């Protein structure tokens, strides 16, 4: 490769010093801060299995988000059609993200198409069929638009998830999108695993809906829900007994206002009885809307609905200006501060499902790292000892290469911010085996050549040359196998594959290049007649 020995010695030294440079932060904790700007910053990152923490795979339910969107659309469409004097009946959200309705006029379809074109560019007619009293029409979101909307939903959700994760103030949370609608959330060192999951289980969708006081809730509970109404439940605490029960409400389905109009939410102790309330501050548009809504509906009840649950349904006493409102549920302090936290963070655009969860306690993590490091050290020592016994001084040369190899792997892990996991340690151990194999191959060849009576120098040269191709082949096949694993690409396996690839690349350098440099250097310096091999 490089003929000049001086150049090769220089390369070896530069690589070794470079490796040590990147390992300083890992090995030394207390570095004077004045040195910091000259030193590498990154330590080796430990995976969740080694330092404890939580790994979650979340699925963003984009279909649900589209359905919710269509729900709103169907309410709006109803009004638009009435405004345009199109005659219809049974308009509502149908299965999936579609709207169905029945047009009773023969010219209805053209009129509907016009309305859709002018006001709902995202929607189109999916199918029509002849019904009894008119034409049955199904409306859906345009396919291309639906894909875009889903993508947007995922992007916004990830933003919100990030926000919720940030509330835990963790050192290095990691949020990695995966596939179309999945997110991997890695939370090293998190203790409150239950709290984390609760954060994702709630979409935190806040709505203000009017209570339908013209129709009877009892009738609705019997199954006759008036058109445009829904039944929602809320908790009610009996002040005298302290028991909590579920109370049904009949609500107008249409949301007057949502959590999107909020600017802030705070916990307040409201009155002299010490009742806890959550005070809401609307943003400027929200404040205007809220003033209008309260002004138009004085004496009516306005329900505050959070993720489908009615928190409270106070009577509007007067027009409320100033953009402030209070939720006086029957909260404990803890519940109130959780709710306020959710409202500040804003709603997730779509519900989130937890598909996979792995939690490793910190004690297990530290056990694992202790055992893993122990196993690596013992395994490496065994190999080092074996090489010296079997190949003597040449074995010692291979051992130097081996130690450089391990340092190189760790340096690369630190420099590229890769994560060291337990299988990663196993991968490191594996490359120790393969690196030694390369030297065994070379040494066995050299022995063969020596047996045929060649001089030391000639035997060395032929030994290295002959073994070279074989070593390249074995390393590349190893790398090929590891690359396949990276594509399979999941936490622990990826760690195994990454360290193996780094290790194999490093091994090509250490076991061929470095050992050769040492041999050549020694051969040049001393006149060696007999090789210790």
């Amino acid at each position, binding site marked *: 490769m490089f003929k000049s020995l001086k150049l090769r010695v220089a390369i070896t030294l530069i690589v070794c010093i470079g490796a040590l440079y990147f390992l300083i932060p890992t090995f030394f904790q207390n570095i004077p801060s004045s040195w910091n700007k000259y030193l590498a910053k990154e330590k080796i990152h430990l995976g969740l299995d080694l330092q404890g923490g939580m790994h979650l795979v979340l699925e963003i339910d984009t279909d649900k988000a589209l359905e919710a969107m269509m729900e709103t659309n169907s309410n709006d469409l109803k009004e638009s059609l009435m405004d345009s004097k199109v005659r219809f009946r049974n308009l509502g959200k149908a299965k999936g993200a579609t709207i169905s309705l029945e047009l009773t006029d023969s010219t209805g379809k053209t009129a509907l198409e016009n309305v859709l074109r002018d006001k709902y560019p995202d929607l189109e007619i999916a199918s029509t069929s002849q019904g009894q009293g008119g034409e049955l029409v199904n409306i859906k979101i345009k396919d291309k638009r639906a894909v875009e909307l889903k993508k947007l939903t995922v992007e916004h959700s990830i933003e919100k998830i990030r926000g919720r994760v940030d509330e835990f103030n963790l050192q290095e949370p990691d949020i990695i999108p995966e596939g179309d609608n999945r997110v991997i959330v890695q939370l090293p060192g998190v203790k409150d695993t239950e709290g984390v999951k609760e954060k994702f289980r709630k979409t935190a969708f806040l709505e203000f809906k009017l209570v339908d006081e013209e129709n009877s809730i009892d009738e609705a509970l019997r199954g006759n829900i008036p058109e445009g109404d829904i039944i929602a439940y809320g908790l009610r605490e009996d002040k005298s007994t302290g028991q909590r029960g579920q109370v049904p409400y009949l609500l107008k389905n249409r949301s007057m206002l949502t959590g999107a109009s909020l600017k802030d939410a705070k916990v307040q102790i409201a009155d002299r009885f010490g009742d806890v309330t959550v005070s809401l501050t609307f943003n400027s548009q929200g404040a205007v809307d809220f003033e209008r809504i309260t002004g138009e509906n004085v004496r009516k009840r306005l329900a505050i609905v959070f993720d489908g649950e009615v928190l409270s349904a106070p009577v509007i006493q007067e027009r409320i200006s100033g953009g402030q409102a209070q939720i006086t549920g029957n909260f404990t302090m803890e519940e109130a501060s959780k709710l306020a936290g959710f409202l500040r963070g804003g709603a997730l655009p779509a519900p989130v499902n937890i598909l996979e969860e792995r939690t*490793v306690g910190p004690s*297990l993590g530290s056990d694992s790292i202790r*055992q893993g490091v122990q*196993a690596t050290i013992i395994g490496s020592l065994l190999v080092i000892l074996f090489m010296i016994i079997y190949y003597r001084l040449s074995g010692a040369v291979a051992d130097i290469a081996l130690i450089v190899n391990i340092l190189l792997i760790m340096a690369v892990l630190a420099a590229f911010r890769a994560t060291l996991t337990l299988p990663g340690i196993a991968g490191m151990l594996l490359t120790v085996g393969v690196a030694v194999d390369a030297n065994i191959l070379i040494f066995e060849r050299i022995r063969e050549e020596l*047996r045929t009576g060649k001089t030391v120098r000639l035997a060395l040269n032929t030994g290295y040359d002959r073994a070279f191709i074989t070593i390249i082949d074995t390393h590349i*096949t190893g790398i090929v196998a590891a690359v396949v694993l990276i594509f399979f690409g999941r936490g622990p396996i990826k760690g195994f594959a990454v360290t193996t690839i780094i290790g194999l690349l490093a091994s090509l350098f250490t076991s061929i290049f470095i050992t050769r440099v040492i041999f050549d250097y020694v051969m040049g310096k001393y006149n060696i007649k007999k090789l210790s091999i």
Partner: protein
Amino acid sequence: MSMELIKPGVNIDFVGKMKYAMAFSAILFLIGIGSIIYHGGFNLGIDFAGGSIIQVKFSKNISADQIRTALKSTKLENSTIQQFGTNEFLIRTSESFSDQNILAANVEQPLSMAFNKDYEIRRVEVVGSKVSADFTRKAIIAVIFSWLAILIYVTWRFEFRYAAGGILALVHDTLIVIGAVSVMNMEFTINILAVLVFVIGFSINDTIVTLDRIREIVKRNPKQKLGDIINLAINETLSRTILTSLTVFFTVLALYIFGGAVIRDFAFAMLIGTVIGTYSTVYIACTSVLLFENLQLSKMKRRN
């Protein structure tokens, strides 16, 4: 005098024992298949089957039966409880608890009642069915792709019949390790999948060294009979094959003994893989090169 494990000039007739080797491999296959049937399929871990694992460490001596009694009449009643290190247990169930409250009601409360909070939940893993189905698909693809990738590389570097021999050995090793996992009734987890790919890498590594030597000798003496060449190549590389296998074996053994309970299964499968990988290099990969050669010869004869 240097240390030598295998004396130069050794000439063991590996090719001549090909039949016994095939019989031996066939027996291993049958044991593996028998075990899989006996156990009613694979003991799939939650990565592939979905479900939950809870690892609990107690501060005093407790038996699996005591835990089973404590969990009676909860949703975990039918879970498998497995000792895992000292005073440490794995509770495994096919149920995926996505809700912490259910987990608390079914594990923490009964355990606290029975054992007075003298325990620590050290690990919880929950894999839903969507993810596990995904994993299974990807796992199969990963193994097959690694076979293919190696087949392509070896075909490019050598000849197809060499590559075919190598791949035959890989498939052989993969199946036998899977069989061994089943015989030991170990859970088939993602870590075991990593072992399979490791074994693939290790076995082909060995195989390539020997194939390389076959090629070299063929170049030197093109007239020699292939059977003899193969024997010579195996013998010449034997000391290296055994040395390397031993070093890898001992490093993995260190992992098995000192690596802790979490990777014990992982290390065990690797140990099996190391032994089988070495065996298959000598007996399966090289001898099947001969087999392919004979097939080609007989085809040619028929054509003539």
